[in-house]
């Protein structure tokens, strides 16, 4: 209960500072021109680790600005796919092409662990996200703006060690957002959070995605989370896309609504059937 109260008060902050958010939104609209997200085309993607073939031919097109969730049982290759998209690993075969040649800061990843530098203050941790532009004159101002965006403007001078798990993950989100990426890959970023913090983080993710218009790829094992957030849910089984479900529901989506529950049930049923087949 206490946890819920604390986090609500933190979460309420961006609303208190609505003017800043509006300002930031206008700034971004000015600079974005057309849509900001990059489209993504994957052809015949394979990845093996030794004899173990994890991805066995993925073909996929993600339009610019789409929010895609990837679900599947553990070990199905969903995290591997994400790492390939983010350029952390090289594919064994096949290709990943973006709509335009991305710069290094256009593709960002957020991991399950916050991966903050414990010896750097919160603001410096966010500045890390600027990559090569770290030394530019407005680096600090941009980092501060990103922190305000995730509702942690008042924590800029703290050490990461004093933050709660959810707050650390918000700092990691601010770090990923600060370079205004055009593709943002999430590798189960909410997996280690408690249920209430999770819901508020999901809302935060949805908000920044709508504000910034990047292409979002979310790997998760939580089907409810996938159907609540995504435009499209991909189910991966045995290294292939087994199901491609479009979630055509208006946002903001009401958690626990009948439509969401029905979609979730359908996908879960498919996943469970799959597991029975292998047993």
């Amino acid at each position, binding site marked *: 209960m206490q946890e819920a109260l604390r986090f609500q008060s933190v979460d309420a902050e961006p609303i208190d500072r609505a003017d800043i958010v509006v300002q930031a939104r206008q700034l971004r609209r000015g600079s974005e021109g057309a849509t900001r997200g990059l489209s993504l085309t994957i052809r015949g993607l394979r990845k093996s680790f030794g004899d173990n073939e994890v991805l066995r031919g993925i073909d996929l097109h993600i339009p610019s600005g789409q929010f895609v969730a990837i679900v599947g049982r553990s070990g199905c290759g969903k995290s591997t796919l994400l790492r390939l998209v*983010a350029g*952390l690993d090289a594919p064994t075969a096949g290709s990943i092409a973006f709509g335009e040649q991305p710069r*290094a*800061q256009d593709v*960002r*990843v957020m*991991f399950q*662990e916050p*991966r903050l*530098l*414990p*010896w*750097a203050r919160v603001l410096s941790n966010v500045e*890390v*996200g600027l*990559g*090569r532009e770290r030394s530019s004159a407005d680096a600090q101002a941009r980092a501060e703006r990103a922190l305000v965006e995730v509702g942690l403007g008042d924590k800029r001078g703290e*050490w*990461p*060690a*004093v933050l709660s798990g959810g707050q650390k993950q918000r700092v990691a989100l601010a*770090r990923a957002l600060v370079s205004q990426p055009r593709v943002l890959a999430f590798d189960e970023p909410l997996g280690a959070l408690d249920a209430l913090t999770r819901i508020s983080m999901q809302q935060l993710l949805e908000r920044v995605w709508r504000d910034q218009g990047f292409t979002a790829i979310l790997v998760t094992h939580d089907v409810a989370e996938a159907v609540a957030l995504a435009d499209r849910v991909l189910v991966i089984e045995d290294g292939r896309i087994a199901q491609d479900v479009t979630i055509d529901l208006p946002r903001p989506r009401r958690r626990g609504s009948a439509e969401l529950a029905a979609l979730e049930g359908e996908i879960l049923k498919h996943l469970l059937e799959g597991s029975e087949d292998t047993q």
Partner: protein
Amino acid sequence: MSLIDSLPRVGAPKLPKVDGLIPWIVPLAIVLIWQLACVTGYVPSRVLPAPTDVALAGWKLLLSGELVRNIWVSFWRASIGFVIGGGIGFAFGLANGLSQLSAKLTDTTLQMVRNIPHLALIPLVILWFGIDESAKLFLVALGVFFPIYLNTLHGIRTVDPQLIEMGRIYGMTDGELFRRVIFPGALPSIFVGLRFALGIMWLTLIVAETIAASSGLGYMAMQAREFMLIDVVVLSILIYALLGKLADSASRALERLTLSWHPAFQKK
């Protein structure tokens, strides 16, 4: 239970200065009991002189300038030896932690040298360097080298690989990665090495000075033994204890300064 609970709450906020004195209660009590035992004649003065006699001997040596000179000579040797040995150890630790090739090339050799007790080299060192300054500096440097080397190496090897991956993803150059991720991550371990090294530094120096020297604290103690000046011998031993404590406090202060991010060093 209730007593333990109440102690810090009642004691700490009202008398903050008392808190800093608590560690000195035991040493002071030992000195008091010692004094009492000597005055009552329970311990004869040729076995152990009273603290007041030791203080008096110290005072006399202080007036003659001998004490300050000897402490200064020892301090100088310790520092120079520490800087040389620590510097080389740190450099090897960095090189072997960062480069597989360097580690393959030198680590086995260093591990073999490490297993020779460095004080066992004293006869050889005397043959090589005589009883010159360089002999003592060599021994101190050798003693200090290994704790610094091993802990620097360990610190660098155990930096969280997830943080290194994060640094690379965010476009850090090798230099930045070292400065912002690897070095700060290795620092707590380097400090452990530093504190071990400080202890070994005094140990090696005093032994070296006891065996072959014409000045310094170890020499002073040896001379006193020759002339049966047991109060000076005890004085020397007490000075070692204080110098050791001083070195430890200095490294702790440095630790608090540079590791303020670490939960263990954060003030509530």
